[in-house]
């Protein structure tokens, strides 16, 4: 086993599109880890979704050789939804490589992750990427980094991950500046799980960093949080091809397979120690806590069982989302699901549709509310249709977040306007340079989950970046808006909004439904109500005529088939009270973008 002083463990902290995956590809080539013939773009991103979106969802790690040193590159998810996963990846490192696009500047999530790295006492090596681009402004961007992070501009490296320029010097700098790990190979075992994936053949494969002691093949291991004991079936390192080893010592990073069938039993942040000679738990474990919720329903009610199976399978791979069965009058049988954030929600939904071939309808996302009831009880509500009636509620608190936006100064106005519309309060404004500014707001999370990202992007032509972190609960003047079809509430459309926005929501939804719901044999009122009070109303007028005008000898076969088809369509209708509604109408009404 090589001496500890030869190891360097580091993560790359970078914004989407700033070239992290390209740099990882270059490093794999330069260090000879991947044969040039086997090289492909975004080598470490294995999921289709990661490649398509150019993002990293799962942490990866790879062992590299450079100049007689052994480097462990830990590729982390960069998105705000996965902040906790990032913090565990950083906890596995002694250093972080901050990679910033020299034509763009540092972005909000990158900055947040950098602060996180500093909190973990990581050494930061900063590099400006894409210096080969004509639009690159390395001096300005270096100045920004110096301003916000205190890293001297003179220490910031200039590279092009695309051409490979400056990458060897960067690797040299990582070796020179990042301290080697420390730890006693003979002490009781302390290893951190910073990622777990589910493999259909091997079960759970965890990425681990050993802090002290030695992780040996065949050892009997204790998983502290899971309170479970497993045998280390296989231990190995990734070159990046997985290569079994007998043991991993302090400072080493690798993978661990221990016959576990569910990633929930080997969560990110878990401490692994020896069953017979246990060490103390590593600090910082946290249960993943869903922040955003929605109902997921199969478009075709017959696919309910498949959806349940798919959720079970997906959860083997991702223990950070939750699901429980729920029934909707409008949408039938489905599940109320909780996610770390909006991207996480989208990813889970997309994976269900893609990997399990399901067609799903998602209700509008919502957050979790804390209710103080009149009778003194406290209730947590993550589903608007489960909200008690207004007279039972003493007060409602909703989650707030601290939102950091980094933007070119020209967009300050539109961003402030957006944040004000979304009930935001500015807490700080800091000029990073003459051209870029950091805005910090406290905002209700519910306002973010609607379409805040999209609005921010469109108002800043994509130049602003966003990060947020929980900022506790605050009492708000919130109302539940019900939508009633022919006086029957339609659960899928119930929502909780600030009182000032109840009317807008009610009007928009009733108008949308009026267009989508086919005419019935009687007038169908569509109403939006807060408590018992109607705030918006539309009417689908009774249909007066549908009969086929002509039915003679040559029409009979065709018309009979037409009516048989209409009959089948009728059977598929959802019955809300006396009103028949095609499921497609509900699906269309739930689409946020229209």
């Amino acid at each position, binding site marked *: 086993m090589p001496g500890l002083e030869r190891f360097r463990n580091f993560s790359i902290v970078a914004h989407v599109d700033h070239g992290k995956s390209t740099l990882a590809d270059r490093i794999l080539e330069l260090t000879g880890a991947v044969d040039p013939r086997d090289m492909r773009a975004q080598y470490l991103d294995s999921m289709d979704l990661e490649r398509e979106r150019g993002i990293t969802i799962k942490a990866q790690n790879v062992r590299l050789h450079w100049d007689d040193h052994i480097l462990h590159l830990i590729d982390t998810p960069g998105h705000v939804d996965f902040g906790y996963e990032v913090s565990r990846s950083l906890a596995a490192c002694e250093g972080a490589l901050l990679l910033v696009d020299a034509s763009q500047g540092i972005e909000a999530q990158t900055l947040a992750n950098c602060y996180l790295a500093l909190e973990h006492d990581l050494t930061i090596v900063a590099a400006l990427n894409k210096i080969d681009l004509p639009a690159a402004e390395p001096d300005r961007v270096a100045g920004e980094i110096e301003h916000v992070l205190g890293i001297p501009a003179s220490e910031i490296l200039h590279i092009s991950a695309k051409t490979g320029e400056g990458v060897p010097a960067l690797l040299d700098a990582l070796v020179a500046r990042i301290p080697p790990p420390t730890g006693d190979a003979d002490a009781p075992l302390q290893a951190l799980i910073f990622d777990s994936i589910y493999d259909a053949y091997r079960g759970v494969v965890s990425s681990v960093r050993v802090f002290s002691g030695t992780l040996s093949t065949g050892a009997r291991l204790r998983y502290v949080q899971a309170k479970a004991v497993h045998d280390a079936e296989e231990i190995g390192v990734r070159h990046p091809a997985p290569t079994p080893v007998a043991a991993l010592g302090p400072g080493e990073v690798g993978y661990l397979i221990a016959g576990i069938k569910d990633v929930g039993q080997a969560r990110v942040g878990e401490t692994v120690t020896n069953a017979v000679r246990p060490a103390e738990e590593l600090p910082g474990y946290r249960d993943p806590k869903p922040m955003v919720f929605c109902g997921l329903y199969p478009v075709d009610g017959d696919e309910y069982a498949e959806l349940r199976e798919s959720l079970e399978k997906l959860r083997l791979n991702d223990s950070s989302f939750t699901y429980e069965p729920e029934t909707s009058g409008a949408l039938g049988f489905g599940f109320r699901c909780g996610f770390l954030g909006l991207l996480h929600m989208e990813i889970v939904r997309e994976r269900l549709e893609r990997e399990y071939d399901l067609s799903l309808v998602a209700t509008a996302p919502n957050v979790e509310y804390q209710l103080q009831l009149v009778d003194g009880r406290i209730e947590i509500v993550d589903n608007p249709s489960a909200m008690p009636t207004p007279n039972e509620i003493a007060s409602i608190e909703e989650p707030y977040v601290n939102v950091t936006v980094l933007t070119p100064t020209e967009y300050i106005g539109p961003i402030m306007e957006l944040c004000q519309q979304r009930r935001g309060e500015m807490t700080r404004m800091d000029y990073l340079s003459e051209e870029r500014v950091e805005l910090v707001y406290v905002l209700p999370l519910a306002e973010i989950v609607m379409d805040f990202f999209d609005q921010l992007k469109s108002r800043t032509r994509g130049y602003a970046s966003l990060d947020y972190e929980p900022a506790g609960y605050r009492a708000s003047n919130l109302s539940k808006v019900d939508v009633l079809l022919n006086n029957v509430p339609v659960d899928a459309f119930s929502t909780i909004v600030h009182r000032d926005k109840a009317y807008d929501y009610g009007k928009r939804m009733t108008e949308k439904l009026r267009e989508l719901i086919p005419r019935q*044999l009687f007038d169908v009122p569509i109403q939006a109500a807060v408590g018992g009070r109607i705030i918006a109303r539309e009417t689908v*007028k009774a*249909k*007066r*005529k*549908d*009969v*086929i*005008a*002509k*039915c*003679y*000898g*040559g029409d*009979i*076969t065709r*018309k*009979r088939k037409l*009516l*048989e088809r*209409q*009959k089948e369509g*009728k*059977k598929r*209708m959802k*019955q809300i009270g*006396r009103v*028949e509604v095609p499921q497609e109408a509900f699906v269309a009404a739930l689409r946020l973008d229209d």
Partner: protein
Amino acid sequence: MSAAQFGVYVHIPFCAARCDYCDFATWTDRGHLVDDYVAACVRDIEQRALAPATSVFFGGGTPSLLDAAQLTAILDTIARAPDAEVTVECNPDSIDLTKLRAYADAGVNRVSFGVQSMRAHVLAALGRTHDPDNVARAVDAARAAGIDRVNLDLIYGTPGETIADWEATLDAALALEPGHISAYALTVEPGTPLATAVADGARAAPDDDDQATKYEVADERLGAAGLVWYEVSNWARPGDECRHNLLYWEGGDYAAIGCAAHGHEAGRRAWNVRTPERYVDAIARGVSPEAGHEVLDGPGRCAERLVLGIRTAAGIKLPGPGADSSRVATCITDLADLGLVTRVDDRVVLTRRGRLLGNEAATRLLAALDGPSAAVGTR
């Protein structure tokens, strides 16, 4: 209906001009085919040992576009029962006393005029060219020729037609004292010039509510004039109902002569090749002109009886006691509560509101006839 009823439908696929809304099998550029086509029809009939017809119907297209001799040549070939009803569809523009006399001599005893509207601007919007005054002349000529049974075909709900326009059309038609009027809601059929114009936004689509109002106006005025409703779109003086068309709705048998014609024999429905060329060719080669057919099973025939029967004043028979009859009975009660049907003796008949909502009534009844899963609409 007695089992001896048997109809012959002859399709004449030629027109002088195509109407914008028409989706029938008809052509305006096949004049050169007419002689061959007539000969093919004659030969087709001769080769088939058809039972004596109780009704013959020349439809189109525009049958009156044929020379009288051509039409009567076909008719002469068809064996007929002594009091057979023989109808020819006529364009009021292309008919005259001479032709009508020839028809009458050959046994034609009923004519059906495509009037559509008595308002010039409505006719123009339909892409029709005839002069409303021609209608009166044509009706007079038919009567002068000794053909007393006259039907006028009307269309309502053309965008641009006011209620007053429609009332004027009804009144003008009734002033001619026809024994029969068919009134159809203008329907946008796929593939027609009208459908293209509507899709392009060049023309407005007909409005269901406007058509419903006009239907009610028609039912009032026609009823007041002594024409009794007997099928969704048909009214007649009692005894003057079209026997041939009743065959369709009562599930009777009829033979198909000509291209695109449909026939029915004891549960087997068949249709001929669509173009006149292919029909002429098939007959010339001595092969069947049939392009396709369907044979319905028990439930299929039952569904068919329902969707056809419910359109008529006779309605459909209430189900007898049986496993499924309670669900059907519940459905009928619901439909009655909604004002769509009434019970007349042992039959169920659409109300005026029900006639307008005939598809709703039919699909609910069809669903009730289906298996136990068909609970929709019975709650």
